């Protein structure tokens, strides 16, 4: 029998890495076990095509908690964030809508479309800021239980009440935001279809909800909570791709003494005397540990890693109905040149450098109905015939992503439902890729001629390669019925599980998805607190 660790963490996704770093920093001996040959889970960079570096899955950062960046000194470990400067929405009629980081420039651009929208946009930004501030106390804290009468929980509820009371004028707005559809919310503010579409789109990312589905406004807010260097709701690319985030956290964890083993697949959580005692690797090797923390999603953790006899039937049933429907896919493209968007041609003809327009995000979301129709297809088990896309030309901000003169394009696509009606993703993958490219070609006609290599990542691939059940990028839908203390399932706080000394630290716990790291940090805090209870046994 090999060495015994204080903590073993299954899976080296960004949350697992954050958890490892915090535990190691507190003096625990920590071993991370990663099935793949590289750390990062869905936050990885791989050279899929020679000279081109792909952020294969996750592709932008915004939500990563500033406290984690500073506590773990991520910049010191090589993390450099390059802010995206705006969002371009190309439109089918050849026009475009550009929102810059600079408020004045955005205002001038919006004036071109609608004077009232230009005025409303600033107020909208302030409103979202205040709402996100009101939610913030919820993100850095474990959610209080709504059913427990334990004194500690009641204290927490009371503190939360106090924190919310400070934002009282916004509480009703918050309640509306939690329950509305992003379309309804956005339509209350704006009249320009392109602006409505672009804003409502952030309410559908990663979910199997349409812009008209109640609950999608919360997802929109979730995406507005990011902060880069104190810049609220800014989005950024990590230099070197998303893998750089994971590498930096891993370096921090190693710096605190954590060990990371790659190509070490965990087959099962070892459970003895009613509590977890370690893990068994796929090769049969047993590793003993004081606690086991799973970065895998709740379904994978409790349906494959823990043997059913250790879980009661009620709990297994509630895990089985945990909503984790995958809905998104990625196309990663190596390009021979910059794509030329029809909508920017008039500017180019005037001699304007259009590269800044392309250096941010590019959103194919011309109006709300477009997005809703894309969702309608997915509802009935088809990928969208005209999908929503969020595109980043990462090589424009970070030339290291592609050889000189070439470009790297990452295309986030919805909807790609995990379960296709009467077809399999293995058969449909390339046809789906063609659909995406055909749609894109309506906005950038030269795209087909400049593709050197194309990688299509379907929900099925995300499940098989990354281990995300059904390809759900958030480890479970951000629906009201599974948020806060109900995440992943009602009855326990999310990080701890019915199996003593087995914890979850992934996005399937509060506060949920996005490269945020909060789940990893909160799980580490919970483990450290519980350890005192056991007297370090």
């Amino acid at each position, binding site marked *: 029998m090999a060495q015994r660790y204080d903590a073993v963490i299954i899976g080296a996704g960004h949350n697992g890495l954050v958890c490892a770093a915090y535990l190691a920093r507190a003096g625990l001996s920590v071993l991370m076990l990663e099935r793949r040959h590289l750390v990062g889970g869905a936050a990885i960079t791989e050279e899929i095509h020679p000279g081109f570096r792909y952020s294969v899955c996750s592709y932008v950062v915004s939500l990563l908690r500033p406290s984690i960046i500073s506590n773990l000194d991520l910049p010191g470990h090589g993390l450099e964030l390059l802010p995206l400067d705006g969002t371009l929405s190309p439109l089918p009629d050849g026009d475009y809508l550009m929102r810059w980081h600079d408020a004045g420039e955005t205002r001038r651009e919006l004036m071109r479309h609608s004077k009232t929208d230009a005025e409303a946009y600033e107020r909208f930004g302030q409103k979202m800021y205040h709402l996100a501030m009101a939610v913030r106390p919820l993100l850095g804290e474990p959610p209080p239980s*709504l*059913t*427990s*009468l334990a004194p500690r929980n009641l204290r927490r509820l009371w503190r939360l009440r106090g924190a919310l009371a400070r934002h009282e004028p916004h509480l*009703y*707005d918050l*309640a*509306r935001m939690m*329950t*509305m559809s992003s379309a*309804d919310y956005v339509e*209350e503010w704006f009249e320009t279809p392109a602006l409505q579409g672009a804003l409502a789109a952030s309410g559908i990312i990663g979910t199997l*909800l349409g812009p*008209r*589905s*109640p*609950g999608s406004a919360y997802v929109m807010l979730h995406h507005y909570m990011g902060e880069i260097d104190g810049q609220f709701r800014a989005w950024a690319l990590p230099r070197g791709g998303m893998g750089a985030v994971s590498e930096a956290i891993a370096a921090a964890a190693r710096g605190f003494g954590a060990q990371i083993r790659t190509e070490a697949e965990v087959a099962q959580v070892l459970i003895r005397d009613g509590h977890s005692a370690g893990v068994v690797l796929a090769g049969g090797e047993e590793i003993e540990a004081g606690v086991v923390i799973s970065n895998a999603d709740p379904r994978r953790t409790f349906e494959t890693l823990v043997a059913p006899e250790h879980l009661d039937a*009620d709990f297994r049933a509630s895990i089985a*109905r945990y*909503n984790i429907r995958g809905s998104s896919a990625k196309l990663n493209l190596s390009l021979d040149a910059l794509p030329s968007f029809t909508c920017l041609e008039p500017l180019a003809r005037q001699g304007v450098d259009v590269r800044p327009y392309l250096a941010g995000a590019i959103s194919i979301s011309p109006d709300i*109905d477009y997005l*809703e129709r894309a969702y*309608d297809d997915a*509802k*009935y088990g088809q990928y969208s015939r005209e999908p929503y896309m969020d595109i980043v030309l990462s090589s424009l901000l970070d030339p290291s992503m592609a050889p000189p003169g070439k470009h790297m394009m990452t295309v986030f696509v919805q909807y790609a439902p995990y379960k296709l009606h009467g077809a399999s993703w293995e058969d449909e993958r390339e046809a789906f890729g063609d659909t995406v490219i055909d749609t894109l070609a309506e906005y950038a006609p030269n795209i087909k001629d400049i593709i050197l290599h194309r990688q299509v990542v379907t929900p099925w691939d995300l499940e098989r390669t990354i281990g995300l059940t059904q390809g759900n990028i958030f480890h479970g839908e951000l*629906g*009201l*019925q*599974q948020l806060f203390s*109900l995440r992943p399932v*009602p*009855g326990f706080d999310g990080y701890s599980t019915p199996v003593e000394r087995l914890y979850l630290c992934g996005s399937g716990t509060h506060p949920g998805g996005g490269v945020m790291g909060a789940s990893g940090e909160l799980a580490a805090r919970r483990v450290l607190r519980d350890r005192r209870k056991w007297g370090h046994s």
Partner: protein
Amino acid sequence: MSPFTQYDVAVIGAGHNALVAAALLARAGRSVIVLEQGATVGGSVATEEFAPGFRAPLCFAGVELFHPKLIGDLELEKHGLRLLPDRGGTGMPLANGRWLGLGGPDNGLPAKDRAALAAFASFTARMARVLAPLQTGPLPALRAKGFGDMLEFLKLAVRLRGLGARDLGEMLRFLPMPVQDVLDERFENDALKAALAMPALTGAWLGPRSAGSAWGLLHHRPAWRNGLLAPPRFAAGGPGALTAALAASASAHGADIRTGTRVRAILVEDRAATAAGEGSARAIGVLLEDGREIPSRTVVSGADPRSTLLDLVGPRWLDPEVVRAVGNLRAHGSVAIVKLALDRKPRFEGAPEGDAHLAGRIRIGASLEYLERAFDCAKYGRVPERPVLEITLPSLADGSLAPAGRHVMHVWVQYTASDLRETSWESARESLGRTVIGLIGEHAPDFADSVLHTDVLTPLDIEQRFGLSGGCLYHADMTLDQLLYMRPLPGWYRYRTPIDNLYLCGPGTHPGGGVTGLPGRNAASRVQMPVAGTRPAARLMA
């Protein structure tokens, strides 16, 4: 000078909620005048002769949701209301001539679904019992102002705890869910799922996949109703008998009910002009269409929130934020009513012998996908080719509604958006009638031949005839963001408005739509007579 003396309360409209409020206030000794634009009372809760000798419910067919306590308190039986005994259950004609009977003992479901149905019925019953105070209202004040308010909350907390942690967790999870997920988790049979989803979606601008639609399930299965698949409860003479009894009760308590009297505006006085200090507008009566003014100490509006505030009060009396919020209130019409005069009882393929199966509700919409696709049409402003139908035959139990041997059929049709994009309701009206007859005919082959007369009430008719914004029978969509403390708008759960002495009493207020009488009752309980020269003690957000 007005020819009227000052009333304590002027009630705008004589829909069932307005009548409940009027009757309760009159019973409490207030002088009440009720002003109804239509020729008769009842609004959308009425019985209409749509063809010679054929009478049918105008909109709502049954009155099973009406709160039983109100029937006693207002002595409605003494005033002519007679409820017919429940009969039948829920029947669904399915493809290939099959029939699914639900709500009876032998329902032909697989054993697993039967067991799941029993468990679900008991779970929803437990929830309904615990949530009854919230579902009836008024809601306890959010910002507790004294022991009484605190006690309300404590009582609620204790009730909720009484459910046990497991049920409570399950309930918290249940309420915001899409009804489809709730049902998929429990049942296998597609038709059963559709049958259970339909009551949840009745009148709603939600599809089975819309989050929050599970709330509708609970709304239509309150503690005072026995089960989700229970049959409708008819009033003898149709739903008009309920509103007639309410009017009779109100009159008996001294309320003055004027039909054919349209209110043009609510009279508002700027308080700052009359008293020092913080300015605030207050209602002082109503202005009639004919120019007469009726002074009153309070105004209780049964009109929907948008019409009340934007049309009857007018934006100039309101804060721009309020105007914006009221303007953004979502009220979608999603229902059309088709009334059919039949020369014989319909014969559905596969249905059991006898006519017990015709006495309850017959639902057409074989699966959740069928419902969702019908809602998809409404989303894009199209009339569905295959709408969702909720069918009753009120004449089966009540011979007074049709000539001997003949029948009336009432069809609640969803989803019919009020705003059509490619056509207008004027041109779509007749084809909707044909669509409905054709759809029923798929399951009852000689049905079309039995139709003597068709009457279609479109969402546009509902909007124009009852003055309901958007043709929304519930006055405001029953979506999670417009429920409970946020109905009709955030913080407006106390039936007050930003105009002092003006109250709302329609289904746009908590607990919402359907023929419950509860918004009217709750509003009546909140109406306070202003004391001359002082500000009302409780403010809107209290």
